[in-house]
């Protein structure tokens, strides 16, 4: 039975290629085209500017993750902020700044 269903359900790769391209190009067309600045890079820069205005941030302790989906993209900026509370040592992550996940919603593909 599994043998038979495997035989008939052989996954073709072309639809996967088409879907991947459609998602990727939907993003690239808004971010790369016409020499415009990369939207996500700009978002990242401006968000960091705001954070830096209030707390000292070590550039090495900033993690940026990006997940491009078909309908929305997730830009996740993880900033480690040292010494907001008096007794905390530098390593302690502040709860408030733990995960300021910024959902950068872009146009649906």
């Amino acid at each position, binding site marked *: 039975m599994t043998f038979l269903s495997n035989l008939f359900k052989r996954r*073709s*790769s*072309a*639809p996967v*290629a*088409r879907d*991947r*391209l*459609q998602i*990727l*190009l939907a993003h*690239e*067309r808004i971010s*790369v*085209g*016409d*020499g415009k600045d990369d939207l996500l890079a700009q978002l990242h820069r401006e968000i960091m500017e705001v954070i830096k205005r209030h707390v000292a941030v070590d550039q090495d302790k900033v993690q940026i993750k990006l997940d491009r989906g078909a309908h929305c993209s997730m830009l996740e900026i993880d900033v480690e902020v040292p010494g907001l509370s008096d007794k905390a040592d530098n390593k302690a992550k502040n709860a408030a700044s733990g995960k300021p996940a910024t959902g950068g919603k872009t146009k649906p593909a």
Partner: protein
Amino acid sequence: MAKVLVVTSGKGGVGKTTTSAALGAALAKTGQKVVLVDFDVGLRNLDLVMGAERRVVFDLINVIQGDANLAQALIKDKRIDTLSLLPASQTRDKDALTPEGVAKVIDELRKKFDWVICDSPAGIERGAQMAMHHADMAVIVTNPEVSSVRDSDRIIGMLDSTTEKAKSGKKIDKHLLLTRYDPQRAARGDMLATDDVLEILSIPLLGIIPESPDVLKASNVGAPVTIAEPESPPARAYAEAARRLLGEKVEVTIPTERKGLFDWLFKRRVS
């Protein structure tokens, strides 16, 4: 009125030079006056594919810098008398391609020929930008494969933003040429199908060139496939694409091998 056509793709190795040679020869066969201009400065290959590598004396850069005039640099094809080649320089730097120099050469070529076909280098840098800058039309050569489609999308964006036509608010006439296509693999779902690529890139289809050993055979002997093997499937596909460029309404098909009775008998006896 002469037409300037750029053959471009972004990605390398998809068949720009093969296409420039084959389309150029197919157009010239119909009586059109055609010049092929190689923009791949430093890595010229159109001369080799055309079988003219031993006849190169002066090149595009020599003409731009005034070391030679156009008539001295143009190489007339020995098989089709309406076909000429302007080779790229093999030794100079890409920076020698100045916008003013290229504009002057293209203007001169427009007066002498019906078609100026610019064979673009791969990539999106100076050489590729110079090749597309003066174009009225573009043939975007794409393989049914993810990286090629992505790069073609990028090139289409450039054609719509950086070319002279785009800057003067006009649209450049873009055509998709799908090369190295294997209809059987596409039918099995193992290769992007024509409709997939058309849907993603959304530009009109100029033709589908089937994957074929005849293309390599032709370049081995230094002839465009439309001259070396005119009855082969890729040559017929290129010839039809050329007719579409001339404005004829020809339905897009994927030519297959024509097997005569003799071939059939011979094949059976061998196997």
